[in-house]
């Protein structure tokens, strides 16, 4: 398993001079292909800032990020856009859906940006909706959906371009625990069955324990980086397997 992300000495300073605020301070972090990593910390510790830097949405004040061994700080804007569009998937704390568009249109968006043809992108979006079990809602206005359904649409949107890495910032933050579980199950099923690398920002310890690895940050520094104990992970595995089986069935059905 190779490194997909390699961050060296990442520092992010907001503002200038007297108003300067160091949100991240000398972060070193390697993420391997197929890993599931939770980034945990108190509010304001710099979790989102770190995720934005890793996802190449923002540039660090100091330090470098390598994606697949390639220095991302040296890429042109165009190459950056291409990289994000083809390799990354995003799930945000807020849904960020276009309220007036249909569910299908929302899921199609990354493919539209990539310039995929009309016919092909519709097919791909329907497949993604099938995985989150919302095929039947494809033609609905996105405002008609419940909170959990909306987040599932966001996951469909994040996976529609078959990304290698999914960045999720508080994916369950807005949801009740039952619905939140469904979302986590979906994400981990993708991690296990498709080998998608998961980077989840959260302050929910239970969610964090589902990951193979937890990175804790405080005041912009990594204070611990450790594998999760097996017994903690086992609690969730039963539920995960059930969901994984369902995804498998869906995929098999589609293959026919």
């Amino acid at each position, binding site marked *: 398993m190779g490194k997909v992300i390699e961050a060296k000495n990442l520092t992010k300073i907001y503002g200038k001079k007297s108003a300067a605020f160091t949100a991240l301070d000398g972060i070193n972090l390697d993420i391997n292909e197929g890993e599931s990593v939770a980034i945990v910390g108190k509010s304001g510790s710099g979790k989102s800032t770190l995720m*934005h830097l890793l*996802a190449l*949405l*923002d540039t660090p004040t100091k330090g470098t990020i390598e994606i697949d061994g390639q220095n991302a700080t040296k890429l042109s*804007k*165009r190459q*950056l*856009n*291409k*990289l*994000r*569009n*083809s390799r990354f998937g*995003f799930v*945000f704390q*807020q849904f*960020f859906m*276009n309220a*007036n568009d249909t569910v299908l249109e929302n899921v199609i*968006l*990354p493919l*539209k*940006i*990539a*310039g995929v043809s009309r016919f092909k992108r519709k097919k791909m979006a329907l497949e993604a909706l099938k995985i989150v079990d919302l095929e039947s809602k494809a033609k609905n206005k996105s405002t008609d959906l419940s909170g959990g359904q909306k987040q599932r649409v966001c996951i469909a949107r994040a996976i529609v371009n078959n990304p290698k890495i999914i960045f999720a910032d508080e994916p369950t933050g807005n949801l009740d625990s039952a619905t939140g579980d469904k979302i986590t199950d979906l994400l981990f099923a993708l991690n296990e069955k498709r080998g998608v690398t998961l980077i989840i920002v959260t302050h929910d310890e239970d969610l964090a324990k589902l990951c193979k690895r937890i990175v804790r940050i405080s005041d912009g520094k990594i204070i611990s980086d450790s594998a999760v104990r097996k017994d903690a992970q086992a609690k969730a595995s039963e539920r995960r397997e059930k969901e994984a089986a369902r995804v498998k069935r869906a995929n098999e059905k589609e293959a026919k």
Partner: protein
Amino acid sequence: MKLLDIISSANSNLFRNKTRTFLTILAVFIGSFTIILNSAINSGVNDFIDRQVESAGGDGYLEIMTTEAVDTFSSMMNTSEVQEYKEKSSNGQNSSYITDEQIEKASKIPGVESIDLIYFATPEYVTKKGSDKKYAVTSLNLMPRGNVNLDVTAGRKPDSTSSEPEVALTEAYVKALGYNSDEEAIGETVTFAVPNTIACYTAVKREDCLKFVDAKVVAVQAPGVMATGGMRANLALNDAIYQLSTEGMPEETKRHAFQATAQVEPNKVDEIKEELKKIGLIAMTIDDEVGMIRTFFDAILVVFSIFGAIALIAASIGIINTLFMSVQERTREIGLMKAMGLSNAKIFLSFSCEAILLGFWGSVFGIAVSMAIGLIGNEVAHQTFLADFPTFDLVKFNPLNMLIITLIIMFIAFLAGTLPARRAAKKNPIDALRYE
């Protein structure tokens, strides 16, 4: 993102906030409607004037007056200024009259083919020969020699080289005099009654001082606006009437004329005008006269076009405002699309597209409504004040003009859209995603 996708999503974004979009399009529409209708009226009027010019006097036809007469006319129009008195010539003759000497000189200018003095003499009434039904004559104009066309519905134009008196009637006189059709009138003889100026000073009864002249009807005129509908006499008839009305006057007085007409070689018009000026005569072609009417219409239309332009400027501000609001509302969406890899250039393009579409829809509605109103206007005009001119369309639509106007409006809209589109393109995806 493909261009077609950008255009179609720009269009659907526009109609997210229907009321706001509709009001902005309405503002563009007011401007485009004014300008398009205006240019259509301009085409219609100019086309009409062109056709009238052809029937009022063609190439090389000149109307001539003395410089003094022109001055007198213009000072009559301008009563607010008092001119210094200029002494008249020693024989007391009014120098506004064209003299024999001037005619003599003018006829020798190379390129002048013919020149005739015009005497004005209006008969009192006309009758069908032998009938005692009398009809008042308000205007009988000379059909001069030279390149002047007359639109006729029957017959041919009066021949001013002929020595026989000839007349072209109008349709109103044909009816009044009792002919069943225009064709029936042709070749008939009518009689004009002419008052003799001197005899009428002393006559007890009006009939005692009237003299009579017969004329052959050679034409019935088609309605037009330039010659204001009067009957037309050939030179022989005009002369005969003038002779009868001035009989008994001194020869010198008889020869008083303010106006002359000339036919000259068309390509020498400008030089000949210069030469005539040297001998105190001012010549005007029909184009010169029509030019004034044209300038008058053009001025009115320019004023309306300015209204249209002002409306468009206001509409541009509306477009800027609408798009700024839209950029603000869609901050997160912009951030999301940027996070997903949409380039700044395409964000700019997509908002510019919205601006251009606002311009486009405004123009399309402008064209549709002005065409509808134009067609209704033409129909109404043909049934009322333009009933006599079935070939004259008040409003004439020129597809190329409309296309150009639409493109210009779309370009103006694009320019207005660049401000908000730039703001959208420059948004930082992180800030946009953090935006509450």
